């Protein structure tokens, strides 16, 4: 760990009481109903609470809450780019920054960005880029940041949705919205929009093979802009999983559209 001289430092090592109080029995069963009462093997996404334009300083912003997963995303720019190379002359540059608040997960997340944040930033970038009309913004840079305030699972999927809403709220030209959906495969069964425990429980027990999948989807263009899976899946479960996630995105679509319409109406001058 690089030492951090620009922050108030605590003791060199400390341990979360969660680790001491942890009981293997608490690990989730792979059968029966889910802990929050949702259905297994169905496209049962958590209801989302979404708002646009909450942050006064940003060009565009969005907040999304799905169960206890809470994220906020802001968009700044287009502004003149920091770096200049020849591709910048023809099209704009999109930057993404995903961070987890230190208190967002069961174990405290250190301030210094880890490789997980960088990985998520990259995946967010690749998921959003195909949807943004970057050639409309030559020599410019559009900055998207996402802060995960609480991670109760499916953070990347919701980050994608939240960030694309913030981009739309900022009036950035886009070919389509981007929606995200995750899925967790447990043996032959799956759960959609998994919670934190459903995502991470496998690390501690069970011999059943598990896999995680996140899809970013452009609903009206029917294009997949982001895909990431890990764990163990067969080709069939992966393919079925992708289809399920697309369905999950379509479930989200009307809600997101409604929020966006509302935001646009609010921003537009009253018609006479």
């Amino acid at each position, binding site marked *: 760990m690089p030492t*951090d001289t*620009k*922050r*108030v*430092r*605590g*003791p060199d*090592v*400390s*341990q*979360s*009481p969660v680790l*001491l*109080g942890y009981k293997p029995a608490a690990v989730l069963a792979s059968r029966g109903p889910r802990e929050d009462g949702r259905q297994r093997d169905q496209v049962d996404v958590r209801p989302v609470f979404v708002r646009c334009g*909450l*942050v*006064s*300083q*940003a060009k565009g912003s969005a907040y999304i809450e799905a169960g*206890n997963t*809470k994220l*906020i*995303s*802001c968009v*700044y720019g287009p*502004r003149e780019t920091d770096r200049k190379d020849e591709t910048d002359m023809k099209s704009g540059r999109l930057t993404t*920054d995903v*961070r987890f*608040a*230190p*208190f*967002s*997960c*069961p174990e*405290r997340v250190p*301030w210094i960005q880890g490789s997980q944040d960088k990985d998520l930033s990259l995946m967010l970038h690749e998921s959003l880029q195909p949807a943004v009309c970057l050639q409309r913004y030559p020599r410019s840079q559009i*900055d998207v*940041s*996402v*802060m995960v*305030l*609480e*991670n*109760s699972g499916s953070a990347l999927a919701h980050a994608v949705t939240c960030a694309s809403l913030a981009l739309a709220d900022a009036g950035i030209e886009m070919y389509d919205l981007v929606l995200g959906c995750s899925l967790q495969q447990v043996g032959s069964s799956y759960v959609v929009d998994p919670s934190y425990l459903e995502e991470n429980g496998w690390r501690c027990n069970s011999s059943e093979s598990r896999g995680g999948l996140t899809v970013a989807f452009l609903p009206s263009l029917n294009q997949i802009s982001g895909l990431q899976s890990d764990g163990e899946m067969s080709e069939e479960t992966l393919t079925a999983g992708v289809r399920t996630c697309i369905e999950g995105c379509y479930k989200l679509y009307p809600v997101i559209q409604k929020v966006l319409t509302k935001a646009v109406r609010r921003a537009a001058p009253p018609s006479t």
Partner: protein
Amino acid sequence: MAAGFKTAEPLEYHRSFLKENCRPDGRELSEFRSTTLNIGSISTADGSALVKLGNTTIICGIKAELTNPTVDAPGKGYIVPNVDLPPLCSSRFRPGPPGEQAQAASQFIADIIESSEVIKKEDLCIGRGKLCWVLYCDIMCLDYDGNILDACVVALLAALKTTQLPEVTINKETSAPEVNFEKKHKLNIHRHPVSVSFCIFDDSILIVDPTAEEESLSTARLTVVMDEEDQLCSLHKPGGTPLSGEKLQECIKRATARKGEIHKLIEKVIKSMKTAQ
């Protein structure tokens, strides 16, 4: 016309309001923006609070972890406060390590915790010389529209007041810590500091709770921190134009009134949470 004036000559624009004893957003000189408080919204934190001061939004989450006390202070725990100004909250901040302003804010909060003794560090000791709590108080700005310090202090105080720690005992035989999540207790809050910040325009006009724009146009700033027993915990004036004793008294008077308002707000919100449960 007005919009053009506002952006082209921002200082003149503000002066034109101050002459009339009011501010562009309609406030009087000694009026705070509306303050809202939301507690316990982050379930992954042991205590949390979200404060809005007009547009300015601050969230504070408390995470408690176990560690060994230092040799110098075997009977004390740690409190580690950090303020972060992520690029998300304003275009003035870039990704990377904390800038000067964030570092200064962290230090300010650390000083208040130290001087006011919000929490006695002795309360965080579990086994003398063996085991204690470290309270990570992570404060983050989500919308930067001026006067983050006042909002940070409210968020910190409210978050600490809602923090609950599980019971931890040291097993006599194995000398390993054991955690009982069934039994939780609240932190003992000894003092309730409240911060009140001012800006001075043209070396003479004093306004309270400045917006980001007001901060950037002002000639000096002042922050007063006071607890419920009217003890000053901090008086912070980072340079700028000098201030008369008379003005300073005025500030302290305003702070005394504000302190009561904040205490009431926190009590009210905590009570409403309890009844909601």
